[in-house]
């Protein structure tokens, strides 16, 4: 009894130690960001991606080269901008799916694709040709199972197998240099009236043709993806396409509790009046203009999700058990995504996602750390006259009531209250479990928000101090903004 009791205590202690360690372990290192880790690949990509001589016609070849080079420029710039990261957990997990697909389909995929883990929160993956595919953190967060993720990856790999990007570039080059296209453009200038309308028609027609082709490509990629999955023994479920229809509902999802409860939990004062839009502006009116933001169905590049579901549902593997994405991958994905959003200063969606995590009963102090960062970031933005942009007000019809309340609060709470929030959060009890780098970031944020010396020089000094003392920290990316000023 005593022995088993000791074992239990030992297990608990190990568990606690591991738990503590997991909080200290960084999500990734600064050196895992793409501008460092892919520096060599970036340079070799520029050299390797040489536009092939595909046309005798000089103009068409020139246009083709322009399109080709723009793709290279796009990827290399994204690498330089740290749009990608290669961490120690998520990247190998995705890479594992790619390896499985490749090994089972060696004929179609003789060379392993070059994987990029995109830090974007948008639910997407993309193939750019040249055997490169990118998977967004937003997609990993959205997928419920490894099989769903594998379907998305197989779909993008299929684009590369079928040379869709390269073919699309050729088609564009041919069309843009075709006599017919040039004639139609020149006819615009010949016309006395309605020039813009005529030009728009030509471009719409061109977009329609391009989208039509792309939609065929999407269907082909879906079909090939199903085959790749089948050979890899990965179950396919067409219902994923239906789920894709709900990608934009995250911010329409209500919170489980009234908004004030999330803040009073930190002993932060809260006033309901902050959440009510006080403006007399048009945003508060019931306008109902015809939606001009959506594009005509004929111009969409992807077929409707329902159409994709209907076309592929017969291939669904009945009764297949789906493999959940490991919890640590999900957790890490969410955290990395949140940090990426914070780094881009999109504070309201960032905070809303934190509150949604709280709704799931998540008590990880890292989210408290993020709440502090968000309010400090907002206070800093207010000081710099950018608060409105940091809040990023979204129209009420695209968001939940709670999201609207939150954005109203962030926009309208008085500066003094915002200052009080920052001070209270900087003294929060959660800091005791934070890593030294996170505590150092707190000090940097303090300098940015409260130091009477608001000069760039003082901020750069504090940022450089942070980077020199925490050279491996992922938060160096944030400090870099100020260090480079």
């Amino acid at each position: 009894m005593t022995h088993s009791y000791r074992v239990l205590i030992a297990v608990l202690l190990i568990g606690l130690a591991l738990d503590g360690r997991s909080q200290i372990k960084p999500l990734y290192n600064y050196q895992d960001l793409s501008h460092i880790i892919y520096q060599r690949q970036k340079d070799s990509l520029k050299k390797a991606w040489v536009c092939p001589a595909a046309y005798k016609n000089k103009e068409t070849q020139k246009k083709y080269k322009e399109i080709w080079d723009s793709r290279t420029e796009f990827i290399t710039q994204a690498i330089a901008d740290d749009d990608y990261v290669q961490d120690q957990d998520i990247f190998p997990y995705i890479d594992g799916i790619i390896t499985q697909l490749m090994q089972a389909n060696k004929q179609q995929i003789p060379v392993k694709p070059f994987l990029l883990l995109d830090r974007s929160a948008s639910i997407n993956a993309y193939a750019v040709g040249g055997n490169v595919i990118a998977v967004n953190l937003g997609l990993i967060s959205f997928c419920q199972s490894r099989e769903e993720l594998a379907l998305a990856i197989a779909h993008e790999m299929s684009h590369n197998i079928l040379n869709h990007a390269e073919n699309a570039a050729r088609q564009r080059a041919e069309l843009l240099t075709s006599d017919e296209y040039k004639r139609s453009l020149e006819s615009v200038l010949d016309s006395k009236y309605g020039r813009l309308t005529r030009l728009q028609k030509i471009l719409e027609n061109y977009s329609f043709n391009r989208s039509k082709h792309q939609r065929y490509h999407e269907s082909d990629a879906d079909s090939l993806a199903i085959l790749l999955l089948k050979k890899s023994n990965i179950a396919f479920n067409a219902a994923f396409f239906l789920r894709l229809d709900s990608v934009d509902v995250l911010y329409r999802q209500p919170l489980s509790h009234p908004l004030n409860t999330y803040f009073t939990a930190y002993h932060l004062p809260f006033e309901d009046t902050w959440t009510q839009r006080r403006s007399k502006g048009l945003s508060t009116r019931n306008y109902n203009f015809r939606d001009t933001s959506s594009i005509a169905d004929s111009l969409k590049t992807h077929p409707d999700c329902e159409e994709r579901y209907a076309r592929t549902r017969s291939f669904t593997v009945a009764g297949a058990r789906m493999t959940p994405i490991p919890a640590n991958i999900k957790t890490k994905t969410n955290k990395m995504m949140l940090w990426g959003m914070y780094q881009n200063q999109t504070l309201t969606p960032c905070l809303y996602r934190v509150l949604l995590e709280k709704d799931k009963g998540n008590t990880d102090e890292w989210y408290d750390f993020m709440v502090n960062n968000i309010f400090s970031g907002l206070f800093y933005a207010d000081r710099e006259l950018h608060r409105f942009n940091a809040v990023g007000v979204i129209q009420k019809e695209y968001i939940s009531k709670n999201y609207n309340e939150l954005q109203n609060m962030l926009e309208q709470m008085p500066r003094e209250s915002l200052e009080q929030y920052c001070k209270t959060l900087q003294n929060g009890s959660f800091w005791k479990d934070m890593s030294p780098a996170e505590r150092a970031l707190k000090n940097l944020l303090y300098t940015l928000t409260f130091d009477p010396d608001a000069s760039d020089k003082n901020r750069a000094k504090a940022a450089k101090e942070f980077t020199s003392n925490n050279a491996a920290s992922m938060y160096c990316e944030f400090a870099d903004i100020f260090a480079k000023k």
Partner: protein
Amino acid sequence: MKRSLLLTALSFSLLVAVHAQSKVFKEVSEGISSQVKSIWQDNTMVGYLVFTELEKASADSFNYKITIMDENLNDIGTVKFRELKLNLYNVAFEQDVLCLAYLKSNFLDYDFGRRDAKTALSNAKSWIFTQFLNLDGKIIATNATPVDIKYSIGASYTSKRSGYGKLKTSVLLKNIPQKGFACFYGDDSRNNLLIFNAAGRQTWQKTVQEDASDFYMLTSQQDVWVLAKRKEKLVEAGYELFGFNTKDSTAAPKYILKDKKGNPLRVITFDNDPATGKPFMAGNIINAGKGNGLLTPNQRARGPYDGVFTIDFTGRKKSEIKENYIYWNDGSQPGISKRGRWDSIRAYCRFEQAFRDYEGNTFFSGSAMLRRPRWGAIGLEIVTAPTIILPAMIAMTAGSTKAQLADGLVVRMGGKGGLTINHNFKLNPTIWAAARAPFINWDNRNYYHLNSSENKTNYLIVDDSRNFTIYNVNQQKIMRTIPHMDGNVRTSILPAKEGHIMVSEYNYKEKYTRVSIESL
């Protein structure tokens, strides 16, 4: 999202790269022009509107696009239509209807060939064109009132000739709460007030027979007030007020702005009292003899004003007009000299703004003007006195007095008729200029007043050459000091929704403009 935007931009840049295409895009885009207007209701900005002339649709008509944005600059809808040449003046909002007031013409701003120009001139016509849009994006009504304009053909070195002409008084447009809209304009034969209901139907029209140089319009509940400024010998004098009731379609007798002694009045503000919603006016009582002494500190020190006044218009009858005059030129104001010098601060006060708070108090604000002897110059004049010419030259150039604009002042007009300095706030002092030098050469301060009905707070914004200073009158505190230039960034401040300012930052180095709507 970021990626898709980038890709879209990328594909567009590819499109314009082709020579033939770039030529087409360039020429087509040259034909597109836009005007950005703010949308107002009850003196509050409620949104923004971009009016774009897209292209010439026929020999005389154009395709237009209106993009409506809410007060947070989010697009909420677009409307397209075809019309003759339009020039948008103002946009107002009432009962979920937008009213846009244009000048429409078949001649103005058109380009003609030499041969066609004379025919076009003989057929030239223009109208005040009001367009009413509901929040479903439908044009629910339009009205066109012919106007009398003196037309001419603009000279040009090219073969093109353009139609020229203008209204005598610009088109003013205001909403009338719970009623509709008031539109005022002046052409070559009359000044005209048009009243529309919210459905866009013209319900009343009134001609204002007044030969004034400027007009200002205020709507207050069911009343429309037109303040006219005639050109007079005293440059700040010549104000007259016309009142109209839109409920019973009656006009009140003309009210000439003079005090009981016959001194003319300088109107600094004419607005609705935030506490009562009724109009009030505030300004200076002009000294009939020295009233034009405004150009230099020396002239100002001679006392161009005799005091200040407020007038409350609780109705349009004479008995409903309450006048309140405070004179300092009679020595009745303790601490203020007969020429308007405040003993406590040893300074004159140049009032730039007047406003009411939410408790009915009237405030005047402006800069404290210090005027001091120039001891060095005086000494030099004495020393060089025997030469006769030198002291005269010193007196003509440097002068014996100097002046500076120092703190911002907020002066409260008490209920019993007293004036007290409520508080002063630090501003960058101007240079010490020769007191005989015109203000225009060295005074670059501008004062603006804003209020927030939600917080019941009044703000002053002072723009000098270096900073914008935002001052909270109620808390007696400077809220922000925003430099005009910060490194490569030039900051401008524009009006925005209530309690906010629009901050526009132009980065010279990276050549972009960032706009943000920030709380005061």
